[in-house]
Structures are given as structure tokens and as C-alpha cells.
């Protein structure tokens, strides 16, 4: 397979989010706020995940969000999708608030509350540098 070298567009990012060390491993963790059924906000730590479509929170958090409906969700290690609860609430990241679906399902990582999937990304531009352990964000993509 031949590689074609191209000059990519220059992108600028205003914000740098360093990775976080947990138990000797480094993760791209972001702080995301959610409006609860009590009409109050709580902030949670989520793993930034470009491979995930929805925002996923662990079942422990389900009862502070509106009751939802069952949806099919697929993941690594599964041949067939399984049912998971999907609900909707307001989500805030870097000052931007939008209504977003969140899925409640098991996330096999301790400490974090879940996964920040691409549904939460839409208004932002992201750059990802694994070896520098940094995530870059622009509010003006």
C-alpha cells in the first residue's frame, strides 16, 4: 500500500486538556455537566472516546435522569447488540449547553462515570496527541 503525503489544513486550538493519570494509566478525561431530574446540575468525569457514538453513563447514575426507552447498543466483544436504556437531558461542556441523548449502560472502567462519545462533540473541533498526552479543543471549528 503506498502512502500519499498531503499537506493537511492548519488547525488552531484554544484549549489544551491534559490526560489524567489513574492507577498508573493515562486517559483523556473531560468534565461534563448534566441537568438532573431535580433540575440541578452535576459534573462528572468521562473518558473522551471518538469510537463511541452516544454519551454513556453507568447504571449507578440512571435514577437522577428522566426515565428513558430501550435502545439497541453494540460494543466490542459482542456479536449482537444488546438493549440499553436511552434518555435525554441537557449536557454542558466548556460552556456549551445542548440537549443530548445519553445511554445508560455498563462501562468497564472504575472511577469515571462513563464515556463522552461523538454526540457530545458536534459543536467542537478536537485534536488528539497520544504521545503528548494532550487533547486539544477549539470552540471555533
Amino acid at each position: 500500500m503506498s502512502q500519499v503525503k498531503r499537506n493537511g489544513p492548519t488547525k488552531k486550538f484554544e484549549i489544551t486538556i491534559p490526560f489524567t493519570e489513574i492507577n498508573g494509566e493515562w486517559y483523556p478525561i473531560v468534565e461534563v455537566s448534566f441537568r438532573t431530574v431535580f433540575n440541578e446540575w452535576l459534573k462528572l468525569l468521562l473518558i473522551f472516546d471518538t469510537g463511541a457514538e452516544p454519551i454513556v453513563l453507568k447504571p449507578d447514575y440512571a435514577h437522577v435522569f428522566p426515565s428513558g426507552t430501550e435502545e439497541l447498543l453494540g460494543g466490542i466483544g459482542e456479536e449482537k447488540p444488546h438493549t440499553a436504556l436511552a434518555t435525554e437531558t441537557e449536557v454542558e461542556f466548556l460552556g456549551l449547553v445542548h440537549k443530548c441523548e445519553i445511554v445508560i449502560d455498563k462501562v468497564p472502567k472504575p472511577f469515571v462515570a462513563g464515556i463522552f462519545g461523538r454526540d457530545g462533540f458536534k459543536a467542537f473541533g478536537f485534536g488528539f496527541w497520544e504521545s503528548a498526552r494532550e487533547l486539544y479543543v477549539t470552540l471555533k471549528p
Partner: protein
Amino acid sequence: MLNESQPGGATQAIHYNSWLANIATTARPSGPENPSPSLFVYADESGIEEAVKEQEDDSLKWIADYLKQWMNDYPDKWIVVKNKEVLESSEDLVDLLKRASKAGIRNPLVLKMEPLPLRKWRTAF
């Protein structure tokens, strides 16, 4: 009560952020004369600055320093953390949020002190 319209605090005027519409494949950039149908809204400028500053300043480096200690001190409990200090703890998330609200903590950072695995594993989401 903490039922403010924005997570950062007091009720703030919300306006559609015009340039956000540029994420769509529209030939004409959005602006005041061409309002965006986007569902995304920003808090006012100070709200954005505050959120960005918080994310950058509070770089979560403290997690590596304090996590094990908190897991020993608050096993299987929910905690509210601010400025590297545990302000509230409870065995129940709803109870914790009530306590935080009573204490006047807005948009509390909530963590659950689940035990870390003795044997590490890799993840593929």
C-alpha cells in the same frame, strides 16, 4: 436551590452562537442575518471563559495524588470534590446531591469511589 438555568451558576442570558452553524454543510455562513437553527446554545461570554478556565486550571492532576487516599477513606461512597477537597460524602447519589444543594455547592463534581482493580486490563469501547 440550585436550579439555575446554567451549570456555572446564576441565570444568564442565552444566545444562539452564530458560528456554530458552520459545522453544517451550508454554503452561506450563519450570522445575525442568517440565524442558525442549531440546538446548541452558549452561556454568555463569561460563562464560556469560566468553563474553559475551570477545565484548564483544574487539570485533574490531583486525581493521581488523592484517589487512593479517598478510596480508602470513602470506600464505595459517592463524594463531592472541590479544590482537591472532599466536601460531602454519602452512600446514595440522591442524598449526596441534596447535601450539596443544602451546602450551596453549585454544579458539584461527583465521583464514586469504586475500588481500583488489582489486575489491570485494557479497554476497547
